[in-house]
């Protein structure tokens, strides 16, 4: 797999997403974000994510892919600009509104963010408990999600004993468990071998077929070629919509 994106010097970029008739899930308006007074990672960024779309967010390491996710999840606040989710401004939300905002988003992390001492089912149950699921409804949901990722028979195993790929499957099951309309995956295949990476991507593509909006951050061009979708490239602190061309390039 190619970990780096090679950009030809005369790259013709399209600029920010065009206005369309589709419903907009997320919108960044003039977003600037920097860390500890350094140069901004994102500078006056504008882009939209349409409802039901499948997007790749790509760029070199450190380009700001994770920052975009952290802003969308309201883990970080922008220095300036506004972020909208279904028309609601979310860049400054805190407390209960922040918690409720996060319950609308299924998130998969490169480092899984699972509780290693807990069992598979306890990890999947976490967002469901937070949303108020209990008893049979909770158990049915857990079993349904674990069946989809093929881990239902092992649901009482501790997460710490699983392989990286299996952990990522648990992470996906957890993110899918409450049927989110938006699904973010930050380098979901970054630590996986090729066959497991493809299995994970098939699962994520399955989510898109179920009408969810999916955004996958990756710098893996092979992955982008294999599972075609709109590609957003972070370059020079801006976000551009691009198309892959040939074996090595992007246009």
């Amino acid at each position, binding site marked *: 797999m190619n970990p780096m994106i090679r950009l030809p010097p005369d790259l013709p970029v399209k600029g920010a997403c065009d206005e369309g008739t589709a419903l907009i899930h997320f919108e960044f308006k003039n977003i600037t974000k920097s860390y500890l007074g350094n140069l901004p990672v994102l500078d006056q960024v504008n882009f939209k994510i349409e409802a039901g779309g499948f997007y790749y967010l790509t760029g070199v390491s450190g380009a700001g892919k994770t920052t975009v996710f952290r802003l969308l999840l309201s883990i970080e606040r922008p220095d300036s600009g506004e972020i909208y989710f279904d028309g609601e401004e979310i860049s400054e939300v805190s*407390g209960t509104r922040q918690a409720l905002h996060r*319950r609308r988003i299924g*998130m998969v992390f490169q480092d899984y963010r699972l*509780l290693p001492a807990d069992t598979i089912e306890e990890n999947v149950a*976490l967002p469901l408990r*937070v*949303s108020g699921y209990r008893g049979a409804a909770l158990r049915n949901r857990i079993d349904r999600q674990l069946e989809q990722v093929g881990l239902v028979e092992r649901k009482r195993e501790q997460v710490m004993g699983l392989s990286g790929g299996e952990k990522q499957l648990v992470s996906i099951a957890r993110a899918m468990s409450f049927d989110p309309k938006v699904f973010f995956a930050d380098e979901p295949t970054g630590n996986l071998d090729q066959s497991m990476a493809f299995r994970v991507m098939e699962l994520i593509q399955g989510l898109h077929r179920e009408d969810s909006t999916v955004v996958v951050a990756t710098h893996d061009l092979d992955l982008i070629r294999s599972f075609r979708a709109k590609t957003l490239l972070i370059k020079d602190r801006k976000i551009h919509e691009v198309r892959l061309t040939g074996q090595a390039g992007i246009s």
Partner: protein
Amino acid sequence: MYLRYGIPRGLRSLRTNWKANFNTILILSSSLSVLGMIALLYLNLTHFSEIWFSNSKISLFLDSGIEAERRTALLEQVRGLELVRKAELITPREGLKALSETLGTNQNILAGAGVEGIPYTIDLELRVGHQEQIGGVARSLANLPGVEDVLYTERRLREVRMFFTVLQGVGGFFIALILTSLFLIVSHATKLSLHSRREEIEILSLVGATRGFIRSSVIVEGLLIALAGGLFSVLTIWICFLFLRAGLSWKELTSSLQGEAIFFGLRDLMYALGAASLLGAVSSYFAVNKLLKDMET
């Protein structure tokens, strides 16, 4: 909903992070034991002083040659006073006998002494709680007709009273100091214990848990840790108390106090354990709130 998640999660976290939690319980238990021992010593000193005060007497020496009727009338008059718990007339013969018993092995100095010259005496004790008025009572009794002299332990009382005033001040200062350090120790111990749960709290926050939801399990854990620390300290203080009480019998001077030493009452212990649990819950609340604020910014 919060407690439905918080209680089992808090219990599980206690098991999972048992090493960190055991250290926290030890720290808590040591601090609470020191505080408890100071309180127990203070309680016993106060108790012993009450016993000592209640044993203090006023002796009224009556005029020589006072008539039997006047002696009886005086006795009734003294018994009728509101502050007097007990009063009895001591004949010269009984007085001599009591004196020789007090002298013990030195009673040979009384050899050949008769009852002549020894006056009739009225010994009286004040009601519990009124011992500090002994001086005033004694002075007013000295003015009664038929009373030649009065003897009471005023100077000793004044000294003991002063000692307890100083003790109250010093004890209060130390208790306040220890309570402050205890709160800081518990807060730091809770923060340390919380550090091991930071990842879990971050994940909970990422999947949309509200602050109340996250706090519930942390507060339950803090409360249980503090309760366990409190129980351990009660056990420690109880063992120390048994040793100290046994130690009182080694010295002739203190052996009489052995049976009088007291431990905290059940209600006091319940209050103390409740306060310890509250302390754990409150410090957990502040610690988790700070962590959540840090995470939010």
